């Protein structure tokens, strides 16, 4: 993998200075934090329209956050620091992942450290923190939600990792900006079998990780069927706002990651304010398209029986493994 580091070195050399890259990272975090709730709003709107309803405005998620932030964070009796820290860890891990992932630019700060493993495990850290937070209050629902979320996470996280590895094998680097840059340099790769297989695997993962139908129903109010909602049932006020923002950021991040890995055009590479602006607009357009597509698929399907969900995810994992194998054979 010596070529890898050479690539990264070239990349870093071509990139603008440290301050500019730090600025780009901050911009990425802000874009994900504001864009995540908007993407959720867009998905709700697409669903509503497809079902013949008007639906809440796309910005509703942001207004809800404003409302929640003004409210007191009431914590359940007997909760420990875990319940208080979990939302913070969730948001912090998502923000850090957003800072280093090539979303708007291939040259964010510490681009060399933006490894596949780093980003995937940052996301995993958030999931685990939330699951622990769900367990902390000791209620039946929190435990049930955490148990279900971890069952799903145990299969979806490896699928995410292996899916991206398929691209890493092709690009000869596990560095995310490196993969994006290499993809930009070789447009022919995008139609390669391992890419298409990996794309299918990652779409399944994104749906599972963000708790969408057919894995989880984000709009249900039936306590016993919920996965994610059951886990966060004990959170209120500003804590709930943090959890909501953290979850929305994960959605934005995952969609942005998938969009840029498979459709890398528009990601700014060589610096410059205008290019970053264009990168931002293109990122918004790409993620919005993906979100709308997922919402349309959601409308046409129903939620799977809980015990069928691992089958779906295992299918995604197998696709990812096949993608990696195909990539290795193709070398």
């Amino acid at each position, binding site marked *: 993998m010596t070529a890898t580091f050479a690539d990264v070195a070239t990349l870093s050399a071509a990139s603008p200075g440290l301050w500019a890259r730090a600025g780009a990272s901050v911009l990425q975090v802000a874009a994900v934090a504001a864009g995540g709730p908007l993407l959720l709003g867009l998905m709700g709107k697409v669903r509503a329209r497809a079902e013949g309803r008007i639906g809440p405005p796309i910005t509703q998620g942001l207004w809800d956050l404003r409302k929640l932030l003004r409210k007191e964070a009431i914590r359940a009796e007997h909760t420990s620091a875990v319940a208080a820290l979990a939302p913070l860890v969730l948001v912090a891990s998502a923000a850090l992942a957003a800072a280093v992932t090539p979303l708007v630019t291939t040259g964010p700060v510490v681009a060399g450290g933006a490894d596949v493993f780093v980003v995937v495990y940052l996301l995993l850290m958030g999931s685990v923190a939330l699951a622990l937070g769900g367990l902390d209050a000791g209620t*039946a629902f929190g435990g*049930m939600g955490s148990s279900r979320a971890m069952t799903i996470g145990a299969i979806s996280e490896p699928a995410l990792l292996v899916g991206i590895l398929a691209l890493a094998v092709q690009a000869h680097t596990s560095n995310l900006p490196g993969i994006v840059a290499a993809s930009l340099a070789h447009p022919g790769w995008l139609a390669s079998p391992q890419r298409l297989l990996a794309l299918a695997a990652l779409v399944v993962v994104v749906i599972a990780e963000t708790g969408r139908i057919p894995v989880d129903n984000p709009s249900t109010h039936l306590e016993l069927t919920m996965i994610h909602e059951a886990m966060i049932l004990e959170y209120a006020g500003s804590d709930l706002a943090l959890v909501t923002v953290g979850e929305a950021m994960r959605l934005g991040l995952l969609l942005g990651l998938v969009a840029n890995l498979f459709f890398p055009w528009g990601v700014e590479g060589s610096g410059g304010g205008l290019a970053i602006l264009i990168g931002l607009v293109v990122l918004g357009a790409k993620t919005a398209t993906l979100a709308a597509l997922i919402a349309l698929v959601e409308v046409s399907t129903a939620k*799977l*029986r809980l015990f069928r969900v691992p089958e779906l995810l295992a299918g995604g994992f197998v696709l990812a493994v096949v993608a990696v194998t195909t990539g290795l054979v193709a070398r």
Partner: protein
Amino acid sequence: MTLHEQAAPIPAGTSELVATGDLQARAAALLGAGFRLALVAGHDDGHDDGHDDGHGLRVVYVFCAGPPDRRVELQVRLDPDRPAVPSLAAWSFPASRFERELADLFGIEPVGHPFLRPLVRHQHWPRDWHPMRRDAGPAPPMRSDAEPFPFVAVEGPGVYEIPVGPVHAGLIEPGHFRFSVVGETILKMKARLWFVHRGIEQLFEGRPAADGVVLAERISGDTAAAHTLAYCLAVEDALRVEVPHDAQLLRALVVELERITNHVADLGALCNDVGFGVAHARALTLRERLLRLAGEITGHRLLRGTMRPGATTLRRLPTEAELADVAALVEDLVGLATSNTVVMDRFKGTAVLSRDDAEAIGALGVVARASGLVVDARVAHPFADVGTDLVPVVEESGDVLARFSVRAREVAASLRLVAELAGQVRSLDAGASDLPRRGGAGLGIVEAWRGTIVDRVEVEADGRLARCKVVDPSFLTWPALSVALADTIVPDFPLANKSFNLSYAGNDL
């Protein structure tokens, strides 16, 4: 005139006073002959001097079978010193429920009951306060330190309990459910209901018979028409009122309309519970359309104010075009759900209620028919000749899909029936509201959208109600839900519960 009336057979069947000691043998013989115990009503006839210490307590047992329509009443007068009845629980599961109700509300002890726990009475009711006794007086202060309900704890490695409700996240009626679970599999579910006790049966007492309609319409909000009809039929039976054929046709039409509206809402709600929002949105639109139609036809979206003892009035009839429109939309809706493989996968094999269990529990209505039982009061106890052959819709598999299919097919059948009824009606305002001044006892049986409602009224000679006992199908069908849930997984409970969709308010009166 009086001679003629005396010679006429009592339409409700026979009523017979039996000795307490003979009750079990007589009941067993009836149950063995294919009758079901449809209603048990306690009565406190009191004393003229106002003094009451358990004297004058009487219990009425109503047994039904059909077709052909057969109704038999057995009455027992209780020992004044020790108000007790021999328990029929060994022969009939519904009897065990009725007897627990008697024990709570009247303080009548069912001797030999195998599992005499409180039913209606919640822990904060004083144990010895029986509100249906004449001498009960105003409600005493509720106790907060009372012993909790004796839930049966399931023990074993990995078993844990999930308590849900009575306050839920959605806009649904209150009910407390306690699940004993291993992993995600339900070992046992105990439903603790009776959070909505309004004392409706007592509110009927002393009202003029014509004024009971207002209460009957409010027993269970979504079943206003069928409950009102059952009440009207019971009063008409008690006072021997002849109702014109047109009025009966209009009543049948209104009850079918109620069936269609509620079944459509259920079809959508079942889809919503598996996350299939499109079908739910369509069902809601269709339901709103049906409610508006109901508003135009009867003047009330929930079909109130059309029926009264002796008469029925509608504003207009539904047109064939309106009914055909609805039929097409329902067909679309059902097709949308059944063509989706994920929806079908969720419905199939979920929460199976076997035919034997349904029969033993005495389940009624949609739930019973989805488990292969042919029970439909429209066939067994028709209140009027609607001039058409009604065939009960029956499915065999007993799962959520069967209950979905029964509803879907019943909507189609009811739409055809409404069209036929509308064709036969000659007058939109049929019957007379003046009730004869006489007393009596009567029975009303109606197949509501959930199942069979049985009402029994006793009217005093001055035309006031002495007693009105209401049996909503939910009262007898609720225990079937717990049985169907064995080996179902926790996340499928809301779906299973919705497929039963039993009434909390109708169950608790």
